[in-house]
């Protein structure tokens, strides 16, 4: 009985293979986008964790210099001689054949075991080879591939290392980094003897730094990944609309089967159980396909994501995916849970259905005007909630919750809105055919409303994200012009060279502006301190958001600080607040400037002040002012005179170009997800129209009987789809603008720390409008084609059949 019942239920899918395909496809696509995002995020997070765990930084306390500069090796010896169990580390960057690598030098002998990721004593490495020149580079396989053919010491592979990082002996690293006798930090062994002398006596300029459980990287990139996750969820929600409508349709069509099964004695409980089992099978199959597909999408997107993470945050993420069980598990779980949630109301209805309920399959259970209103009321409530969350909530999660509430609310209002619009159109139209057209469209609305809601979401997301990206772009380009007014940017390689270059340039240019900097921690985050000269270049161009009228004079006198917008927002600063710079020195905040694309906080002080407060600040970089037409020649001369590598003398155009490239890649992922979401929505419409087409004969037959040719009817079907898409697009524009505003004014501020002005791009909407209509027409084409091929006998049968 059980088996027969199950087979009877399943037989439905054999007779409606397209419906089955749609259900599986919808679910698989939804799962795919979600899993793709999860896989990408998982890969990125794993690489942050590897980076954070390198030489135990996430578990061990460290000794560093308060100003972030390197410390002399003599400090290490002095501390060991004073009884401190510490182990030296040097870190720096170096290029090998154009590949920039993070060099990490360790002493494997004193390295605390918490920090030993790689067994240097293992057969394939060997302590002797590791410490004896030319040494050994321990790298991940991906890094090894990137380094193929480069002139490096022999490579040894270890997957414990993050991409782009080289683990090597401390002595080898000091030579490579041209830093003999220098160290970046000392790892403190957790097993310290009690008798050690106090730090203040041995190395007073060193401070203890707590282990960094969460790397700065993962904190900085959190918002980026949350953005991706939100997109994944949106895509999944859109996909669920397809699933919901396909399941709903299947349940309606199976009323006779269900009645029969109940009538021959299958208990209700068993029946429901069988249907749940069926859904589980279907969703598992679709989920598996979806996750596999998701990996494909992720593999395509990952190189772009990796590039933008590297560009934006300096985060090294490998361009290749590894298979994670968590992604499979989560993907399957969300597919099954989504399916069951979509089917819950249907199952409930079957449970409540009288045994011998009419087994008449209907086009759809017609939603009453009343239920449309209820739905719209719920939508309005959601919009209100979104407004309240924006007003009173804080944080990225609140931002995304508001976003979700707004989108869902707008989607829920859509059917009523369309119904009203269609009623209006019917009232305005003349002629029988036109009136029938509008009335029939309205009649069809409940069946299509879910697909149209999905379309609304996809269109709104497209319009919103498009507006956000374009606004960002426009602001960013203008800002780059302000931020990069100098013609040339020079990076020297040593303090001595820096002095010579400065003198050389002074005689040949209009101005040489030092860009010297140091690093410190304030307000619990790493902050860059820049020292700048008092020059019209800054006074005239610097992109200030707000400032005291005499800000530049006070900076020049060493009596004030400028902060970037992100630091101002994160630390809730206002003009006039004091900024703690170095022990004992605090200066008032006199201005705030915009600093897009920089994940870190930044402050600017006068260059003299910088040198005074941070005697060891890096003094290697200069901006050069010169007539633009003379800049290329000067750059060439400078490179020749000091034998500087190409990348050490760059002109303004190159920097801008580079910045824009990072920008483009960052949003390449967003654009790709956008297109995919729109594709899923198009599919939802197609699925709905396809399944409806079989049942619409009873509505079309009378029109045909009264003289409308099938070709004409088919054309009207296509037009109807286009009209609904157009109306939906009209509704999508304001929703999209709302979305864009939320992204710019709420999400970006929370995620990146800057707020951007919103610009409108109506031409983009027109393009989107055409895209929406085109996809609706495309979706309606196949059902319309089928209609023209109907035999008259089929249509006549409508009147004969007892229905």
């Amino acid at each position, binding site marked *: 009985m059980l088996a027969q019942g199950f087979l009877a239920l399943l037989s439905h899918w054999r007779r409606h293979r397209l419906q089955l395909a749609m259900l599986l496809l919808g679910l698989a696509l939804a799962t795919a986008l979600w899993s793709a995002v999860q896989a990408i995020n998982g890969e990125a997070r794993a690489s942050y964790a590897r980076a954070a765990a390198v030489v135990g930084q996430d578990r061990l306390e460290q000794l560093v210099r308060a100003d972030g500069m390197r410390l002399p090796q003599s400090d290490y*010896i002095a501390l*060991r001689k004073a009884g401190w*169990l510490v182990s030296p580390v040097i870190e720096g960057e170096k290029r090998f054949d154009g590949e920039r690598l993070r060099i990490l030098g360790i002493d494997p002998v004193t390295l605390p075991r918490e920090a030993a990721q790689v067994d*240097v*004593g293992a*057969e394939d490495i060997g*302590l002797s080879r590791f*410490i004896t020149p030319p040494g050994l580079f321990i790298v991940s396989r991906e890094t090894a591939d990137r380094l193929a053919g480069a002139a490096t010491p022999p490579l040894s592979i270890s997957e414990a290392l993050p991409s782009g990082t080289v683990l090597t002996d401390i002595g*080898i690293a000091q030579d490579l980094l041209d830093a003999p006798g220098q160290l970046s930090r000392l790892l403190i062994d957790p097993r310290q003897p009690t008798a050690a002398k106090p730090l203040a006596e041995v190395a007073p300029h060193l401070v203890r730094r707590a282990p960094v459980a969460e790397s700065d990287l993962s904190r900085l990139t959190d918002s980026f990944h949350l953005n991706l996750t939100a997109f994944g969820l949106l895509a999944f929600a859109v996909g669920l609309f397809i699933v919901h409508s396909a399941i709903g349709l299947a349940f309606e069509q199976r009323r006779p089967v269900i009645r029969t099964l109940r009538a021959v004695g299958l208990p209700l409980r068993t029946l429901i159980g069988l249907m749940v089992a069926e859904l589980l099978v279907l969703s598992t199959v679709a989920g598996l396909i979806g996750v596999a597909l998701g990996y494909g999408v992720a593999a395509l997107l990952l190189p772009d994501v990796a590039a933008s993470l590297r560009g934006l945050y300096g985060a090294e993420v490998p361009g290749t995916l590894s298979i994670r069980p968590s992604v499979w598990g989560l993907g399957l779980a969300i597919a099954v849970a989504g399916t069951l949630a979509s089917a819950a109301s249907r199952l409930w209805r079957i449970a409540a259905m009288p045994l011998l309920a009419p087994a008449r399959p209907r086009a759809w259970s017609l939603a009453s005007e009343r239920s449309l209103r209820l739905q719209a009321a719920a939508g309005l409530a959601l919009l209100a909630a979104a407004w309240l969350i924006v007003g009173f909530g804080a944080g990225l999660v609140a931002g995304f919750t508001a976003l979700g509430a707004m989108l869902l609310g707008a989607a829920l209002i859509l059917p009523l809105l369309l119904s009203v619009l269609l009623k209006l159109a019917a009232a305005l139209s003349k002629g029988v055919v036109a009136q029938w057209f509008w009335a029939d469209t309205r009649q069809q609305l409940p069946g299509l409303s879910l697909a149209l809601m999905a379309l609304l979401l996809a269109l709104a997301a497209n319009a919103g994200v498009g507006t956000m990206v374009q606004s960002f772009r426009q602001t960013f380009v203008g800002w780059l012009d302000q931020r990069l007014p100098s013609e040339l940017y020079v990076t020297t390689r040593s303090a001595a060279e820096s002095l010579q270059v400065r003198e050389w340039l002074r005689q040949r240019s209009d101005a040489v502006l030092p860009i010297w900097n140091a690093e410190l921690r304030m307000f619990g985050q790493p902050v860059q301190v820049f020292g700048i000269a008092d020059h019209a270049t800054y006074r005239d161009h610097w992109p200030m958001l707000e400032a005291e009228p005499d800000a530049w004079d006070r900076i020049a006198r060493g009596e004030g600080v400028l902060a970037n917008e992100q630091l101002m927002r994160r630390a809730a600063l206002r003009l006039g607040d004091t900024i703690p710079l170095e022990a004992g020195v605090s200066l008032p905040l006199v201005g705030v400037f915009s600093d897009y694309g920089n994940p870190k906080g930044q402050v600017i002080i006068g260059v003299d002040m910088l040198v005074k407060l941070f005697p060891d600040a890096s003094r290697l970089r200069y901006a050069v002012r010169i007539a633009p037409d003379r800049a290329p020649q000067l750059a060439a001369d400078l490179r020749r005179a000091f034998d500087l590598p190409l990348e050490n003398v760059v002109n303004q155009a190159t920097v801008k170009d580079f910045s824009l490239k990072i920008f483009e890649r960052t949003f390449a992922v967003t654009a790709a997800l956008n297109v995919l979401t729109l594709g899923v929505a198009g599919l939802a419409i197609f699925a709905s129209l396809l399944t409806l087409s079989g049942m619409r004969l009873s509505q079309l037959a009378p029109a045909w009987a009264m003289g409308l040719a099938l070709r004409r009817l088919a054309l009207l079907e296509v037009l109807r789809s286009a009209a609904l898409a157009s109306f939906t697009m009209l509704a999508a524009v304001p929703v999209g603008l709302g979305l864009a505003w939320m992204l710019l004014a709420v999400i970006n501020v929370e995620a990146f720390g800057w707020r951007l002005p919103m610009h409108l791009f109506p031409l983009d909407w027109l393009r989107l409008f055409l895209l929406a209509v085109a996809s609706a027409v495309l979706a309606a084409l196949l059902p319309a084609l089928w209609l023209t091929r109907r035999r008259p006998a089929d249509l006549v049968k409508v009147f004969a059949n007892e229905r």
Partner: protein
Amino acid sequence: MNARLIILMLLLMAVPALAQGFAGLGGDAQGFAMPRRGVPLAFPRDHGAHPDYRIEWWYLTANLKGDDGRDYGAQWTLFRSALAPEERPGWQSPQLWMGHAALTTAERHYSAERVGRGGVGQAGVTLAPFSAAIDDWNMVGHAKPPADELSALTITAAGEGFSYRLELDAQGPLVLQGERGYSVKSAQGQASYYYSQPFYRVTGSITVDGKEIVVTGQAWFDHEWSSQPLAKDQTGWDWFSFHFDSGAKLMGFRLRDQGDGFTSATWINPDGTPEPQPPGALTVTPRAWAEMKGHRVPVQWNVSLPARGVAVTTAPVIEDAWMETQVEYWEGPVRITGSHPGVGYVEMTGY
């Protein structure tokens, strides 16, 4: 003192980071210098390091009595092992160093370990004046010429829960082990350069869990270097250094293998004249066993050297003198009763 050769080898084998350089120990000496019979030792030169030999150690054990009337023991050791038979500047140095320090009371045995690389000043041995050091552990000579550089030493060490500072004053001459410092180790003929200073009188203080105790006593110093591998069938050893109340000293050891083992001993007269004993002259038999930290170890021994009329029994100051270092072993002070009463140190590995 072949025993300590094994200890060092085992120690380094077990430290993954240090193991590779010793993977070839079963074979030849890979370019390292070899001890040769008849080469005289010269001091102070040979108090220093011999980087062209694979392994070397400076080893000190002290039997102490506190002003509280109780027995204590202290150990201070610096091991050197070379990845290559040379010295190079800075971090490139192939010389690796390891220190062990221990303090024994009747209640507890404290032990600590330090590791480091040569070339950067963290660890090493220098002469004029003599200094052996790793981190904050020091063995510093302050003898006035022409006295031997080792005749007056200050040693310091600290670990979790303990520290000590001991002043050592030699009451007798250096003692060359074996054939004037060329010490044959086994039936197969392995050998090392080996000399001792067993005549130290000790004063100083120890600190146990924050409490300082003034101590006096006697100490025994060994310096030994070699490059040669050991026999593969040797499973461990038992080593003894005795200060008899009569002023005479005895050094002896047994290497355990599948058969009867290999024993060797040196009788040292109160004036410092060594009398090397033939292999097998010494017999050692466990008298009582105890279980500690998962190991069953003999804690009392019957030791006899019939040629000298020695028939003594050892009893430890504390049974659990287990060294909780990367490779573990037993090393602690003992009291000696029987034909020649006195105090001494016992070292046991491979249990």
